């Protein structure tokens, strides 16, 4: 029966703590002197308590045991000394019950020469399928480029077999003949082995010695393409038949050679990082981080679902294959004074003896093991600091019995000592009486307890298993410092590789405002500032610090408005392309932007800024720049930034009158001054106007900026007597030239024509519509892209009495003042018809009596709006303006957009409902409760075909966009919603979107004025609400009346009244839901206004 693996997360191995053990060496359950599965089962509680999550068992299969079990003679059974298959299955179940995963060995490169396959092969005829299970040759001269791995014992990779009368190939010991994977039956045999163990429920397979599976002439017979194809086949077999299992590759190679074993995440899940291990020891001994940072720099990125396996020590020698000759000699001298400690190309010692039993060094190395990117593997016994026995042969000195207590045989077995598979360690320093689990369990300060705590701590933070690594480069090379990041987890690790205390200054400025919290004790350190952060570490000390809290806004963190200081040379080049650039981009601009009203990224955290393109203008100290702002999250934005430098008194004046316009203090060859918004330099402003008037061009680094005058401008080129700066704009800046022109600069740069400029130009020059400010010219940027981008538009200045919003609010105040003491007209109480229907009927007398003159103004505004739409629909010969049918697909897209916006608004409303002011909670609950009904209202028959046409519209139409000019209106700002993409803002849409926008604006005016009124006269608030509704309704009715008169017969509107009503209703609801979102994010106390608007909408 196929059993499940135990893990539920497919990436479980990334968070694992692996414990490597040999069944033979761990615990003897039947007291025969050899460890076994029953003994191991008894020790599972210990392992669970230690906190490891995965057990890696060394080979436990039947074997002559000439290579510690890596010489397998039967792949489908358990070595009788260790127990039975039933014992294994019992162990596996018990481990899984404790949440422990189990990895076993898949030794696929070779078998024992005692394996039946080999015995059969040597007697089979040459060339027969049985013979070809292994690699045979009549000569020992093939594959000469392949190196010999066990140099101490083997002289050749070929051994003569007197029975077969041929040489057989072996990369390891001569008693381990290599299997021949060019033979399909061998592949099938090994797949059967893989399935056999996965069927039993093991969670992972460590594939032993996989670089050596194939042999090819003219190669070193390592890492061949055929090898990768074969492993991928094994992986496919695993993925198709089993879930949440894992392959761990043993490939003792350079990182770049190991990388292909991960392939595209479809070969091995994990691979050992062999070269890192000796370099950790080297760095420690040399008291220099370079060996570690150097090898990590050579470590390539691996696929997201892959992982490095890290270890300090294992069952083999501390391998020095992956170091240079000099490094190997150094390591021998440093860590193996006695030649008996050396074997092959390595050192056969355990962790604690390598560290001269120095507790601090052991802890330091474990801290690196547990905090480096990868999954740590702990070799059995190293958690208690077990020693080794260099007098035992091969690598048996590091494979001695686990030391459980100070009883006979270290508590490993109750057999007579002579029967033990290996003597226990008995010397005074490392002997089991001094070093054992029981003693350390009862010692709160033991290495075992320390390890347990560290493992538990690591398990709390997924960043260690899954996060990225970034080294810091402090001057003191005895300090290794690195940052691990994963999601919102950020951990700073600092290790002192020296035997003496060390100071270190770390540049943590990117974490400015965050608080490091020491992770072991949860101790908060002082907040990080822009200054270098100083730590002092004791000998071999280490710190793990969680970085808490989002970086504060820069101005808050600095606690001062003092701008950054830049030192710049002569000319702009030194700022934009010279030494000052880095500070300008990384410090000055990120501080400057958030203070600007026109900056749209205030709610986001700026990472840095880059000057994309720039040019100097006539005046030596002014320039125009396009700056890309990068944020911590989300896409970047580009802004148009005119800048100038002022010195002396001019600088002081700007500091005093417009401190927010200062980008940085500067030190120039001419003296100190300020770098500031170029619009605060009158000469620069004149230059900008001149650019348009004269149609001039300025070459930039990547293209050009040019002025484009209109015919109107050509008629009026003089009289620019004074320069004023506008202050109220949200997304642009304006300069007023005398009483003639206003230049609007669009700060947020988007490629393509700005609709404000484009529409005004069309209305002025083509449609001859006179209720907009006359278009006078533009500043355009041509970076070589297909369409120029608009940086600014110059308009004729319109004499006016202020905007319609302000005027309406004043009217409303008078209205409330007048009606506060009056009785509400009873006929208005039963007035439930929708505004479209009402606009088709005569205005009732009670509305005329109470709302008065404003009704006429609303009708005028409606007429002007209708005329605007008619004008915008006249551009049949201009593709940007030609009306287009509102197709079924358009309607479907519109409905989809509305629905998404609505769902979003309902979600945010629900999340915030408990934080709303009391008077809004009821409305919120009512709206949420009727949410399905509202969603249903956003359904319009797409196949109706009677929805009118799409034309260019205003796009952001409300009372604030209208100027009151005597008793009439001028319509402004065709820019659309500046935060939306340009393509969206230039898109043709149903004109009813503008109509709905204005109806919502009436509603806002009515209720916002009432809110302010109530602040002064709270006692009248509730009574005046019906009056607000009355005003809102009849202003809307008259507006619609005027609009429909002006557009009678227009094709761009729905063809019948019902369709008109439904489409307009959809736009109104959609707009009100958008307002809900806006208010929740910006002014929760106003959210009641759109909520009431939604509830007032006709069903």
């Amino acid at each position: 029966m196929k059993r499940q693996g135990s893990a539920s997360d497919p990436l479980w191995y990334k968070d694992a703590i692996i414990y490597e053990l040999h069944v033979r060496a761990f615990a003897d359950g039947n007291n025969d002197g050899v460890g076994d599965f029953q003994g191991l089962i008894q020790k599972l509680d210990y392992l669970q308590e230690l906190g490891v999550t995965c057990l890696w068992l060394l080979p436990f299969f039947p074997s002559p045991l000439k290579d510690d079990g890596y010489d397998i003679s039967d792949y489908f059974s358990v070595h009788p000394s260790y127990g039975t298959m039933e014992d294994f299955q019992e162990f596996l179940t018990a481990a899984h019950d404790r949440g422990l995963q189990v990895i076993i060995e898949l030794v696929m490169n070779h078998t024992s020469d005692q394996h039946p396959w080999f015995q059969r092969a040597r007697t089979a005829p040459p060339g027969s399928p049985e013979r070809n299970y292994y690699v045979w040759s009549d000569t020992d001269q093939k594959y000469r480029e392949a190196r010999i791995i066990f140099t101490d014992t083997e002289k050749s990779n070929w051994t003569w077999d007197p029975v077969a009368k041929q040489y057989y190939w072996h990369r390891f010991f001569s008693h381990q003949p290599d299997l021949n994977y060019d033979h399909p039956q061998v592949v099938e045999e090994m797949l059967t082995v893989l399935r056999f163990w996965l069927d039993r429920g093991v969670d992972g397979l460590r594939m032993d010695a996989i670089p050596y599976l194939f042999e090819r002439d003219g190669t070193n017979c390592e890492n061949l393409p055929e090898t990768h194809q074969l492993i991928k086949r094994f992986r496919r077999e695993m993925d198709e038949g089993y879930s949440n299992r894992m392959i761990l590759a043993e490939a003792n190679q350079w990182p770049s050679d190991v990388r292909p074993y991960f392939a595209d995440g479809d070969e091995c899940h994990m691979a050992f990082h062999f070269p890192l291990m000796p370099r950790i020891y080297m760095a420690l001994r040399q008291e220099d981080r370079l060996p570690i940072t150097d090898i990590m720099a050579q470590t390539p990125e691996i696929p997201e679902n892959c992982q490095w396996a890290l270890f300090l020590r294992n069952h083999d020698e501390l391998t020095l294959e992956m170091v240079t000759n000099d490094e190997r000699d150094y390591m021998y001298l440093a860590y193996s004074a006695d030649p008996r400690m050396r074997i092959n190309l390595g050192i056969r010692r355990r962790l604690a003896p390598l560290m001269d039993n120095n507790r601090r060094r052991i802890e330091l190395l474990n801290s690196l093991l547990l905090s480096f990117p990868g999954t740590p593997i702990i070799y059995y016994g190293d958690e208690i600091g077990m020693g080794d026995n260099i007098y035992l042969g091969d690598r048996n000195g590091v494979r001695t019995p686990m030391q459980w207590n100070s009883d006979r045989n270290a508590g490993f077995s109750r057999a007579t000592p002579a029967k033990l598979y290996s003597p226990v360690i008995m010397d005074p320093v490392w002997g089991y009486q001094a070093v054992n689990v029981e003693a350390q369990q009862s010692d709160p300060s033991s290495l075992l307890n320390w390890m347990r705590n560290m493992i538990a701590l690591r398990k709390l933070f997924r960043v260690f298993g899954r996060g990225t690594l970034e080294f810091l480069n402090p001057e003191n090379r005895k300090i290794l410092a690195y940052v691990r990041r994963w999601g919102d987890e950020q951990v700073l690790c600092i290790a002192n590789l020296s035997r003496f205390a060390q100071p270190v200054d770390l540049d943590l400025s990117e974490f400015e405002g965050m608080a490091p919290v020491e992770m072991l004790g949860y101790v908060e350190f002082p907040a990080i500032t822009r200054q270098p952060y100083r730590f002092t570490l004791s000998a071999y000390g280490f710190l793990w610090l969680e970085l808490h809290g989002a970086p504060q806004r820069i101005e808050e963190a600095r606690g001062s408005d003092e701008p950054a200081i830049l030192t710049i040379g002569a000319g702009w080049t030194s700022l934009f392309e010279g030494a000052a650039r880095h500070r300008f981009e990384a410090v000055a601009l990120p501080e400057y932007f958030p203070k600007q009203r026109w900056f749209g990224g205030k709610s986001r955290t700026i990472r840095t800024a880059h000057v994309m393109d720039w040019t100097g203008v006539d005046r030596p100290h002014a320039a125009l720049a396009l700056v890309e702002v990068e944020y911590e999250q989300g896409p970047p934005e580009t802004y148009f930034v005119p800048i100038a430098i002022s010195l002396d008194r001019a600088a002081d004046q700007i500091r005093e009158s417009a401190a927010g316009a200062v980008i940085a203090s500067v030190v120039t060859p001419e003296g100190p001054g300020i770098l500031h918004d170029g619009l605060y330099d009158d000469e620069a402003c004149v230059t900008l106007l001149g650019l348009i008037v004269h149609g001039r061009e300025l070459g930039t680094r990547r293209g050009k900026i040019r002025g484009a005058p209109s015919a109107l401008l050509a008629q009026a080129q003089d009289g620019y007597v004074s320069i004023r700066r506008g202050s109220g704009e949200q997304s642009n800046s304006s300069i007023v030239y005398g009483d003639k022109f206003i230049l609007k600069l669009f700060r947020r740069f988007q490629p393509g024509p700005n609709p404000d400029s484009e529409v005004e130009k069309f209305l002025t020059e083509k449609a001859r519509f006179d209720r907009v400010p006359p278009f006078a010219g533009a500043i355009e940027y041509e970076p070589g892209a297909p369409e120029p981008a608009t940086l600014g538009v110059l308009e004729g200045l319109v004499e006016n009495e202020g905007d319609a919003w302000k005027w309406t609010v004043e009217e409303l105040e008078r209205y409330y003042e007048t009606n506060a003491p009056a009785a509400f007209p009873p006929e208005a109480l039963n007035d439930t018809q929708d505004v479209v229907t009402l606009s088709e009927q005569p205005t009732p007398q009670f509305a005329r009596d109470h709302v008065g003159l404003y009704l006429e103004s609303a009708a005028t505004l409606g007429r002007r709006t209708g005329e605007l739409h008619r004008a915008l629909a006249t551009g049949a010969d201009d593709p940007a303006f030609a009306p287009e049918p509102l197709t079924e697909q358009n309607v479907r897209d519109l409905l989809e957009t509305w629905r998404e916006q609505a769902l979003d608004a309902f979600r945010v409303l629900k999340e915030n409902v408990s934080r709303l002011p009391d008077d809004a909670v009821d409305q919120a609950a009512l709206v949420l409760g009727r949410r399905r009904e509202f969603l249903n209202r956003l359904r319009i028959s797409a196949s109706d075909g009677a929805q009118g046409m799409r034309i260019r519209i205003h796009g952001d139409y409300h009372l604030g966009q209208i100027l009151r000019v005597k008793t009439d209106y001028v319509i402004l700002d065709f820019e659309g919603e500046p935060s939306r993409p340009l393509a969206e803002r230039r898109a043709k849409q149903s004109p009813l979107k503008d109509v709905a926008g204005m109806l919502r604006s009436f509603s806002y005016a009515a209720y916002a004025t009432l809110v302010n009124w109530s602040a002064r006269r709270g006692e009248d608030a509730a009574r005046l609400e019906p009056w607000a509704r009355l005003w809102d309704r009849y202003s809307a009715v008259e507006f619609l009346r005027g609009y429909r008169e002006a557009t009678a017969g227009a094709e761009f509107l729905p063809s019948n009244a019902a369709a008109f009503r439904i489409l307009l209703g959809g736009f109104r609801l959609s707009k009100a839901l958008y307002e809900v979102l806006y208010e929740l994010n910006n002014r929760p106390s106003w959210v009641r206004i759109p909520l009431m608007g939604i509830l007032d909408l006709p069903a």
Partner: protein
Amino acid sequence: MIELADLTAQTRERIEEIGTADLVLATARAGAAELSRIAADTREAIGKLYSPTRTLLIHSGEAIPEIVQSDSVRTLAMPALREADPLKAIADAYRAVFSVARNLNARAIVMLVSDADSITPQWIYGLARPILELDFDLVTPYYAHAPSEGLLNSGVIAPFMRALYGRRIQHPLGPDFGFSAKFVDRLLNEPGERARTRSLASITVDAICEGFEICQANVGVRRYPAADWANQSSVLAQILGPLFVETEYHAARWQRIRGSQPVSTFGEAASGPGDGEAIDVRRLIDSFQLGHRNLQEIWSAVLPPGTLLELSKMAKQPREHFHMPDRTWARIIYDFALGHRLRLINPDHLLRAMTPLYLAWVASFCLDAAVADETSAARRGEDLALAFEAAKPYLVSRWRWPDRFNP
């Protein structure tokens, strides 16, 4: 574990006959009179919902009382519900109710566990509506009760869970809850041992940790059975044990949460039923003093010397001045949570050894003149919750490095 297939053929036929339901309510009540009243309350509650709501009332009666049948509220008998012990675990019966609900494609499931006398239409409406109309995933109850009632919740569970998981939920262990189909799916689909031993504590904690949307509903006055102050040990062990198990399970999560946030609360708050039972403070203090003499060995294994010294001083305080500071109480709870994790002694013994300390806190709470009425008790509860939040770094540091050598 009861799955749908384990139900009687009659029950399964009945489920098939019912076909679908929007709302499934389950109650362990069996009596016809109680059921009739609950069914009537249910009809009234669903009448207030925006859309017509097909409702199934699952009860533990042996037979379906005809009296409660109606078009809008149908019934299903499931005797296994009677065996559900909500204090201990979401037992098999809960899973069975969830399975039935899933089979009927129910959008909301409401478990009614409190005394039938407490349940009102508002109770049912409050637990069901946020699921059905506002897309919440879990509705926890906000009960009104006397200051002297529900003290284990207000003195330990609520402030402990608020500090750890960062959500201000008044009665996180319910036991009356509203569930969304999405959350029930999550509970039913969980494999392994945790699903089999799921506790009430784990419901709210999992919902928080896995990002399900939670709100609470003012359901009205809950009538608590009179506390047996002489026998609190088993209650403590039964309730705090699972709570501390969750603490261990979600350690990686709660250690990253700082401060706390309110959750949406629906419905009008009701007033509690007045004074509640009188508590004999003298006996509670006697119990504490007895525990102080006899349980030093266990307390010493769990509590640091500073706390032990404070307890020694408290044991000598005259009754009229008896007082346990909030900070001390919060740290004691945290130390016992840690002791539970470290398995210093048998968990059951450990929690029972906490009983005299809990009684001391109750005595201190009752003697506090500030909790004379409901409003001041709420303020007092907020102070305690803030003390738990303030002491949370203490828990985190001890949890991460549980060295006994500490102040």
